[in-house]
């Protein structure tokens, strides 16, 4: 009797499972659409909607300093889409991008042979993969970020792992990002199973949870606070936030990976940041990347 019941339930759940295979990202899709709706509403006309979104900004600044009528894809360049003066500075720097040499160096790293004859090209035969990471490994049941994948390739070939924040890792990722941008590929994160959906949900909760002695959540600054000014700069939005990595940040004077910026951000909330290859960090990046699905990869790029 029990075995018959078991068999029946297994069969029905299997059928249910396969029918819902494409629905594991239904919630994520909804979240993304809501996010786009919010940002398009917020930056439709900052001056007009002062009382709704920009209660504390001076009127003059809203009138003269903000771009309006922004749509989904405009947010790819982050706060430079709406901050007019920062946009000018950005375009000036893009005349002579400081990361240009790094792209070539990254290509050298791609083809450089390891001691055993393999190279990074062996692990990543197609370099236009910038928009596919982080991905959910259904066999290992965990989220793998680009940084982790690269380090696992190095380890598997008996090479030393790279620092995940800067140096060779950033240089190589610059080449991957550039190749992806040249191929005009977009952010394309998938949620293939229930476990993946749960990982996404955990990443989402992490993003919206207040933390640190400053009690800030990521959303405090990059959703509710996006467009508002902190000292001299306007905060960037979640939409399009991860499409432009690795980034040459003027503050660093060098190229840095997504993990480098993320742990810096969490530290700014007043908390010890999670390790760069930890489950928490991976799942957070998974959520953030999904929110930028459909947006063109435009790495590497410059930011202040």
């Amino acid at each position, binding site marked *: 009797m029990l075995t018959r019941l078991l068999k029946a339930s297994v069969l029905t759940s299997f059928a249910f499972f396969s029918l819902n295979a494409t629905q594991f990202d239904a919630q994520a899709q909804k979240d993304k659409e809501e996010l786009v709706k919010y940002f398009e509403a917020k930056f439709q006309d900052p001056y007009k909607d002062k009382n709704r979104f920009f209660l504390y900004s001076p009127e003059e600044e809203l009138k003269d300093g903000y771009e309006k009528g922004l749509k989904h894809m405009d947010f790819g360049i982050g706060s430079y889409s709406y901050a007019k003066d920062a946009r000018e500075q950005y375009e*000036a*720097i893009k*005349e*002579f991008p*400081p990361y240009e040499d790094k792209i070539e160096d990254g290509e050298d790293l791609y083809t450089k042979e390891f001691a055993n004859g393999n190279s990074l090209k062996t692990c990543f035969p197609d370099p236009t993969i910038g928009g596919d990471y982080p991905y959910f490994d259904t066999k290992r049941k965990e989220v793998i970020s680009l940084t982790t994948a690269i380090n696992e390739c190095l380890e598997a070939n008996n090479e030393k792992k790279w620092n995940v924040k800067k140096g060779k890792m950033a240089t190589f990722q610059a080449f991957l990002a550039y190749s992806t941008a040249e191929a005009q590929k977009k952010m394309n994160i998938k949620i293939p199973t229930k476990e993946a959906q749960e990982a996404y949900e955990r990443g989402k909760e992490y993003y919206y949870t207040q933390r640190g002695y400053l009690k800030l959540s990521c959303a405090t600054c990059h959703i509710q606070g996006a467009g508002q000014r902190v000292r001299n700069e306007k905060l960037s939005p979640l939409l399009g936030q991860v499409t432009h990595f690795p980034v040459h940040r003027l503050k660093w*004077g060098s190229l840095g990976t997504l993990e480098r910026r993320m742990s810096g951000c969490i530290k700014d909330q007043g908390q010890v940041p999670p390790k760069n290859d930890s489950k928490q960090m991976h799942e957070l990046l998974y959520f953030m990347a999904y929110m930028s699905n459909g947006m063109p990869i435009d790495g590497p790029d410059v930011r202040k």
Partner: protein
Amino acid sequence: MAKTRIKAKEKNGVVTVKTLSKHPMLSYVEAKRAKKEVNFITHFMAEANGKVVYEVSTSQFLSKDPYMKFKFTGAKKGDKVTITWVDLKGNKDVSTKKIR
């Protein structure tokens, strides 16, 4: 010769020049903090067709790898623009580029 990158375009008689000069540009305070020698560009000049078209005496306020953008008239496509800069230690760099 890779010290200064130049872009020069002519449109409707006006030449727009953008330059990026590779230089650490350390002010006195920055140099002390970084325990390096103080050095920054002190004079920056652009010449075209034998005339000086842009000239500026600069000081320690400019940051690393200064970017300059300026316009002038009196030159056409194919003419050359020459950028010369001198720094505190007396180093000099001269770079030339044709106007497009």
